[in-house]
């Protein structure tokens, strides 16, 4: 077996042997972004997010002796965290919504050109694009939101994001692209540049 990440394996082995300090160091370094990810996936319930983070930490520590260094420790931890998030969503009775369609599909004519009446105008430079984008990301279907947020986590390459999400690399690329298109359209609506649809 090829160990691609020997330093990560070393950390994992120390923790498996019961080294509390190593566990604390690991969590202190990663928890901010892990907590951010949980918050973004579960919406605005901080208490639930804390519970899920704690459960994930216990799950990570428990199975640390199974980490084999083939992927980054970070990616491996996110896989456990991601599964805890899905569990929490199920418990809450909210089945994740998935989407694969072209978010702009209704705006092209039969030849794939923009329909008459579609306008796309530059956004106002003073607009609060950042805030709008954050809000638009919350509205994305589960699979697109998850893929975009995971890709934004530092140090997890796209190939490992695909592994965490149990999808092939091309599907991941497509999912990311659809998510970006949906966010662009949502942002355009929020920034006031879309005329009423169906006027053409």
């Amino acid at each position: 077996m090829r160990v691609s990440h020997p330093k990560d394996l070393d950390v994992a082995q120390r923790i498996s042997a019961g080294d509390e300090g190593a566990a604390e160091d690991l969590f202190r370094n990663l928890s901010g972004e892990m907590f951010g990810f949980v918050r973004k996936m579960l919406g605005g319930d901080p208490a639930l997010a804390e519970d899920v983070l704690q459960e994930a930490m216990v799950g990570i520590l428990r199975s640390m002796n199974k980490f084999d260094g083939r992927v980054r420790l970070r990616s491996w931890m996110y896989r456990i965290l991601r599964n805890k998030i899905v569990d929490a969503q199920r418990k809450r009775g909210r089945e994740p919504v998935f989407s694969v369609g072209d978010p702009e599909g209704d705006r092209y004519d039969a030849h794939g050109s923009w329909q008459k009446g579609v306008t796309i105008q530059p956004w106002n430079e003073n607009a609060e694009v950042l805030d709008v984008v954050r809000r638009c990301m919350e509205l994305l279907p589960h699979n697109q939101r998850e893929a975009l947020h995971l890709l934004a986590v530092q140090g997890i390459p796209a190939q490992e994001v695909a592994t965490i999400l149990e999808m092939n690399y091309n599907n991941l690329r497509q999912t990311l692209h659809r998510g970006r298109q949906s966010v662009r359209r949502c942002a355009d609506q929020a920034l006031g540049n879309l005329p009423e649809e169906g006027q053409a």
Partner: protein
Amino acid sequence: MSSTPDCPHPSMSQMPSCQVVSNALSDYLEDVLSDGDRLKLEDHFAACPLCLVYLDQFRTIYHITGEVPSEQLPHDFNEVMGKAIRLWKAELEDQD
């Protein structure tokens, strides 16, 4: 055969349609297209003001959505972590 008047009609030229262009933008920004495909897209942008603005907006979205999610840790984070570690240690000791 009418279309948005500003944009070149794909059947009248060798250009990809607006839809094809829109679907290729992540690949374009990541520079993974072949030279030929990249040039076709760039010809399309030169002739299609809508897609050019779309590209600008998409690029903005591409960069913002790629930013690291930063979140303040909960104020009781040490308790959250401490409890997780205690649970795990207790299990380890039970096994011994």
